[in-house]
């Protein structure tokens, strides 16, 4: 039972909260020297420490601490002068020690904010904390209906992921987003992802789980100032899902409240296929994690001068960069927004850097290539073509060696693995026919074959020239320069435009 979104928003105001986990792209794990490569055969990137063999001890990864501080700085946080790791105790087979080394009341970074743009407005999302912890192993539950541990026939665990550094970024409650709540949530996660990328700390691939988001939603009746009970939705694995999960949870909660029901504080699971959430573990039966300071590790006390150095060394942040590029490229807000949504900024920028005009770079990435990416289900950046190759194609078009149609064929050849643009032009024979003699011979043939059309043109019906140009293009298999062909046809027939 749900209420339609608009009606829900007429009666209730949502309050959001977002907890985002980012797997850091460090070479080794958080507390041992094991590799962190994604997709390695199960249980091949493990050692006594990340398998929690008796007697093994953790040693904190300095690069992970540095990355976390840089994330905190990029999110305008204060950096703790002294803080500790803490043990979060609970039993679960994919957590080898049966406690997770995390941080509790002493996070590394705290009290920051992130501004996001939604519908032309800037919304400030306050950051409560950014802390560092370790990931768990990955359980696969085999058999049973739900794919979850209850009801499964058996479960297998891959500990390769156990101990990969994980940064948790927690927002303060976000009131006042009103109808824009789903968009704000999505914009926040999108912006966060951009920041991680610009910092180079993570590959932030939601589909591989290197960026995971839990969405907290509560509703309060309009005019009330007392926040309602919140739910925490997990398993939100794409940017689109972030938006859908917020929307769906608003609709569900509104229906419950409208009927006089109570929202249960619980964990809910988002289902990609239905776009709805279902109840998970109730917080009432939630565990007591018995946090206490991790005695196997020494406190982290980042040197103030070092933190200042890290701050000075931060890259240009994505929002600043977007404003700069928009001014440089002279593109519209709409174009910028579209590129942002399509993850095309880096690609367009690199293409421009390789010598292409901004408009052309945008046109290819957002047009032909976006379409290809969409069709094949591959992220734009993973298409087997480089910005430099796109720049080369635009150069060939600008020089008149290719027209748009041929350029598309060149791209197709590059994507098919046939080599560089120049190689594809060569092997497919895609140069524009620029030999005037060859072109004139084709024109003569076309005029002879289309005497009627030629006569019409001669008599002043210049519009009929289009058919003749088309004939030339067909006869040349698209290699002719259409504009030149038209010019020559008109000259031959003794008319001018």
């Amino acid at each position: 039972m749900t209420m339609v979104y608009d009606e829900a928003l007429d009666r209730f105001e949502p309050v959001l909260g977002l907890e985002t986990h980012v797997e850091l792209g460090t070479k080794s794990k958080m507390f041992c020297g094991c590799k962190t490569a994604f997709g390695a055969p199960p249980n091949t990137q493990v050692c006594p420490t990340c398998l929690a063999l008796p007697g093994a001890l953790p040693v904190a990864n300095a690069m992970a601490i540095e990355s976390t501080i840089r994330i905190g700085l990029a999110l305008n946080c204060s950096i703790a002068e002294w803080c500790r790791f803490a043990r979060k105790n609970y039993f679960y087979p994919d957590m080898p020690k049966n406690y997770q080394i995390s941080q509790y009341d002493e996070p590394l970074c705290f009290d920051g904010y992130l501004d996001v743009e939604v519908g032309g407005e800037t919304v400030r999302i306050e950051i409560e904390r950014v802390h560092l912890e370790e990931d768990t192993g990955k359980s696969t539950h085999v058999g049973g209906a739900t794919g979850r541990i209850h009801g499964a026939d058996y479960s297998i665990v891959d500990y390769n992921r156990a101990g990969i550094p994980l940064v948790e970024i927690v927002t303060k409650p976000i009131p006042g987003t009103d109808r824009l709540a789903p968009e704000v949530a999505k914009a926040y996660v999108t912006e966060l992802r951009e920041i991680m990328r610009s910092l180079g700390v993570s590959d932030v691939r939601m589909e591989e789980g290197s960026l995971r988001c839990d969405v907290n939603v509560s509703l309060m009746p309009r005019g009330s100032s007392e926040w309602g009970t919140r739910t925490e939705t997990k398993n939100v694995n794409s940017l689109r899902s972030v938006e859908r999960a917020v929307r769906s949870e608003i609709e569900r909660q509104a229906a419950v409240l409208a009927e006089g029901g109570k929202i249960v504080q619980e964990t809910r699971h988002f289902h990609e296929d239905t776009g709805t959430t279902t109840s998970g573990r109730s917080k009432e039966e939630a565990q007591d994690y018995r946090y206490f300071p991790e005695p196997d590790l020494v406190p982290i006390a980042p040197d103030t001068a070092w933190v200042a150095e890290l701050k000075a060394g931060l890259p240009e942040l994505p929002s600043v960069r977007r404003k700069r590029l928009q001014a440089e490229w002279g593109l519209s807000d709409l174009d910028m927004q579209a590129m942002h949504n399509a993850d095309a900024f880096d690609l367009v920028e690199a293409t421009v850097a390789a010598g292409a005009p901004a408009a052309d770079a945008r046109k290819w990435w957002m047009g032909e290539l976006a379409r290809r990416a969409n069709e094949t289900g591959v992220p734009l950046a993973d298409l087997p073509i480089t910005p430099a190759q796109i720049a080369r194609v635009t150069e060939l078009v600008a020089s008149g060696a290719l027209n748009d149609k041929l350029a598309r064929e060149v791209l197709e050849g590059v994507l098919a693995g046939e080599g560089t643009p120049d190689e594809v032009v060569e092997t497919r024979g895609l140069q524009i026919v620029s030999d005037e003699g060859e072109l004139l011979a084709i024109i003569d043939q076309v005029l002879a074959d289309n005497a009627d059309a030629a006569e019409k043109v001669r008599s002043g019906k210049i519009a009929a020239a289009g058919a003749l140009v088309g004939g030339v293009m067909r006869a040349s298999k698209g290699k002719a320069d259409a504009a030149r062909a038209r010019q020559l046809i008109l000259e031959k027939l003794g008319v001018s435009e």
Partner: protein
Amino acid sequence: MSLIRKTAAELGAMIAAGDVSAVEVAEAHLDRMAEVEPKVKAFLHVDREVTLEQARAVDARLRAGEKLGPLAGVPIAHKDIFSTHDMPTTAASKILEGWRPPYDATVTKRLREAGLVFLGKTNLDEFAMGSSTENSAYHPTHNPWDLTKVPGGSSGGSSAAVAAYEAPLSTGTDTGGSIRQPAAVTGIVGMKPTYGGSSRYGIIAFASSLDTPGPFARNVLDAALLHEAFSGHDPMDSTSVDAPVPSVVEAAKSPDIAGMRIGVVKEFSGEGYQAGVLARYNEVVKLLESLGATVVEVSCPSFTTALPAYYLIAPSECSSNLARFDAMRYGLRVGDDGTRSAEEVMALTRAAGFGPEVKRRIMLGTYALSSGYYDAYYGQAQKVRTLIARDFEAAYQQVDVLVSPTTPTTAFAIGERADDPMAMYLADLCTIPSNLAGNAAMSVPCGLADEDGLPVGLQIMAPVLADDRCYRVGAAVEKALESRWGGPLLKEAPSL
């Protein structure tokens, strides 16, 4: 004199000089073990062939001219809580029965590199929780002085093995007194180094902020040689101190305490202390004065709260440290018949695999860390810990070392305190403060109690990274007493 009666330093020198091979020394000790083990039961695991193979390898290294340390070829027994890749490591628990670690602890790794030969793994209270070695899941160990008595604990197998001349050296761990107390009640030397001075990597954890590996030996110099051989910074242990090892061997060779200031801890004597223990202790305090030290009484009022604080901190940490024993990756697995969930198998395994004292401490610790109780228990205990450290600091403003009896009583009878945890916990009354503050502390023999003829230990406590002071004072006491006794205290022990 037979090889087993030699000191470790003597054996090392003889082996280095080629007077005897590491194999011959190992065989002599293995033979002694075969002879007395049925009575002492100090070991959980012995594999003659593995030991002899190690000895042969050391002989080969020496023949090849490899420069090894002063203990090369000397045999050693390890508390069965140090990971050894070629011997099982069980922490005397059923939950790890037969477990063979794929790696060595830093301590055992360093000793292997230094050419020591491993005789086997010694008994302990399960997961080092206890003061008598009766909490071993396998069998109790007997005190070589009186087989009806306990050898102390938790490192009772290691203390008994050295006292029974089965091994010249052994390793132990000291979380609340688990080296010093067994050393005291078996008449040998036991040292708890500064916390962080010796690596914990590869030692099965009981209470991480307290656990400290340390040496057992029959004399102060041997203890120092062993201490030096395995200590020093270890990048695998974050709590390891990045500082040079205090010059303990040099100190052990300098038994001169003239001008040293020695503080007698006021709170550790009087009611509750056995008369024979106090008599020997008071004599040794006078002896220290006669050797030229200035002895003053020092009050450390917070030391009386150390025991309850310890019994909150250690169980809290152990409740978390022992969570990894869940039947999923190694060790015992109970109830996995295809019908039960992972959670049920975990619960059944832990119920079957842990002994009663381990369960008691896991429950205590789980409770103390629970939401709503944390501040009152764990938080409060940490504050007490700070107060104890301050008492030590204040005391060390006045004196160079502190002394006290190591234990309130001599060795008690096997079974005597088994059903009374509180009485058992009191055995660590004097040793716990040093663990809570991370200081160095040693026990050296100071005679036999008149009423039972059993050994009494003197505890010498020193500031963090001043371990050498323990050795200097210990060596002075040892020298003076041995000249009075006409030899080591152990020659008074009944023959086995």
